[in-house]
């Protein structure tokens, strides 16, 4: 199972600039396409302005992830009339409200169950599930492995900030060992889940991990996840600046983004000059994780097996 890392920028280009310049091109393209609202980029057109101002804290990674999702959707869809977003409860799950689509903000941990019913009722709709690490792996963990097992054609994005953001920074099943949270005042004693590997083992046919730090990579991965027929799971590492960052003294939003970079196997070399977190033993250490597409295969989807859609080879 090789790690397929997509669209890695060249090592000698400063990361931030590379992302920004590529993104700007995309904005220009999208704006050119958009005659309904001249000057607005495609992903901005997909925002639901009536819901603003949004509730995310300054520096929170969730908005970065949403932005990349909208960019990918703008490359695939002219309108979001036939795209449904289904989310649970959490800061991450709240982001679906800011998308001008059919959006369903369900209960804590259960978005995949609603999405399963919706998809089987309307297999023609694109159904995207947004969940958090608490939502998808703790209270909703059972639904996650069953959705993967069924290989239902949903795209599930799990925003992993290694903490419960919405409720004030409590321990999550993804919190790294030693990390401080409001319910692990002496540091976390538990082992975290490897969400991607868990879902792969449960039978998902597209599994990837990405970062809010490398939004272009995430955008490509999310687009591939949308295109994939079957259960697609993308775990995206993101940061809760307000709780995880502050409680563990990891710095501001930008510092947290760089700490993601240090935990990325594929780009370790790029950042050789920077101190790694391992050199600061007093702080929790973000583990080195594989990024990119971790698993991709084809097997009959649930809808195909049920005869709700024609088998697509």
């Amino acid at each position: 199972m090789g790690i397929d890392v997509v669209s890695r920028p060249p090592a000698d280009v400063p990361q931030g600039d590379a992302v920004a310049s590529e993104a700007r091109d995309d904005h220009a393209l999208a704006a050119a396409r958009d005659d309904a609202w001249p000057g607005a980029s495609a992903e901005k057109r997909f925002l639901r302005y009536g819901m603003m101002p949004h509730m995310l804290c300054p520096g929170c990674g969730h908005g970065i992830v949403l932005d990349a999702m909208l960019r990918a959707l703008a490359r695939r869809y002219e309108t979001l009339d036939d795209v449904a977003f289904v989310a649970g409860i959490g800061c991450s799950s709240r982001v679906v409200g800011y998308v001008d689509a059919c959006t369903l903000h369900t209960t804590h941990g259960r978005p995949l169950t609603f999405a399963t019913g919706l998809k089987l009722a309307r297999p023609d709709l694109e159904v995207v599930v947004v969940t958090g690490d608490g939502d998808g792996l703790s209270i909703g963990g059972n639904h996650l492995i069953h959705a993967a097992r069924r290989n239902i054609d949903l795209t599930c994005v799990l925003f992993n900030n290694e903490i419960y953001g919405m409720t004030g920074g409590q321990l999550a099943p993804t919190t790294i060992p030693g990390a401080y949270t409001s319910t692990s005042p002496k540091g976390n004693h538990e082992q975290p889940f490897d969400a991607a590997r868990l879902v792969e083992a449960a039978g998902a046919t597209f599994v990837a991990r990405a970062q809010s730090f490398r939004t272009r990579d995430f955008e490509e991965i999310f687009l591939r996840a949308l295109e994939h027929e079957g259960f697609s799971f993308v775990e995206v590492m993101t940061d809760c600046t307000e709780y995880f960052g502050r409680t563990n003294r990891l710095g501001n939003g930008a510092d947290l983004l760089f700490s993601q970079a240090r935990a990325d196997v594929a780009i370790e070399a790029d950042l050789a000059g920077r101190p790694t977190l391992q050199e600061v033993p007093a702080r929790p250490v973000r583990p080195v994780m594989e990024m990119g597409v971790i698993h991709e295969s084809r097997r009959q989807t649930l809808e195909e097996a049920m005869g709700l859609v024609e088998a697509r080879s």
Partner: protein
Amino acid sequence: MSERQLIQGNEACARAALAAGCTFFGGYPISPSSEIAELLARELPARGGVFIQMEDELASMGAVLGASLGGRRAMTATSGPGFTLMQEHLGYASLAEIPCVVVDVMRGGPSTGLPTSPAQGDVMQARWGSHGDRATVAVAPGDVQEVYTLTIEAFRLAETLRTPVAVLYDEVIGHMREGVVLHEPTSEELGRRSGPRGPFSPDFLPYEPDEKGVARVPDFGRGYRFHVTGLMHDERGYPTSDHTKVEQLLARLERKVDAAVDAVAPELYRLEDAKIVVVAYGIVARTARAAVDALRAEGVPAGLLRTRLLWPIPAAALTDVIGRADLVVVAEMNRGQWAFEVERLAGRHVQLAPYLRAGGSVITAEELVGHVLRVSTKGARV
């Protein structure tokens, strides 16, 4: 299909769902309701519908609500322990106004309780099982024929009022076989889901109520882009904590279900001159009817109010009948769940002597006659 057929209560329920246009079932096996799922697992796919066995009852209700938003008439069936797990999503469906039907074939509780014995212990769970102040609709068929007609009616109420509707009956009715006429419902008996007034526009209001106080939520994927949430919301469907708006929303949700009271009237049996009123529902109403006949044969002026609707409580019919009575006997197979409600409605002039049973056996007519004679001779006014 109008000739009489000998079928089981649970089969009548599944047949009614098919006749009512149900095309989605999501459920989790549990006695004594599983026959409903088993029949629909065979019949739904054959008719272009969807059957899915979910991983638990939380998931079953979630799938039902997702399918309903996708435009399906959707249902699940369960028993007490499963009904408990469904409560969170029943609350969600009430607030977000998503139609669905939930059949609860009641068994003895609490906990795993008596898996294959009858009970009526989920009456209050149907009312208050989910947190918060929630308006609920629950029907209670009294025989296999009525399982058929009230399941069809449950779908009509769910769709037209955009709310979850519970069908509550006990294990005996679920497993009992009786001759039933499976009539095809008319379009009026089927009802229609309320929907948006006009085409999509940026100022479209999915939660603007229609003249009956029901939200105009469209199905997903029909050209309307909108937000559905379990948070308190305004008419746009956007979260709000505006106290006035929240009060108004809760009041509207409570008011709209009153339509069920007129739709599902109680059966009034030998009540014209009755001074002793037996109040019962479900399987107990059958033995209560026999008890009333036996009492009448003895010259005791007894009658039966058999409710077919548990929630909202048919208050007007009850107060009218109770107002003319000297003794009211609520007979039910629990520790007094509906009896307390009747007590709230009864004036001080009336003697209340509920007959309650929660051990897993059906109340017999003889017991009930004995009970009425005992309390009515003790109480001076009969």
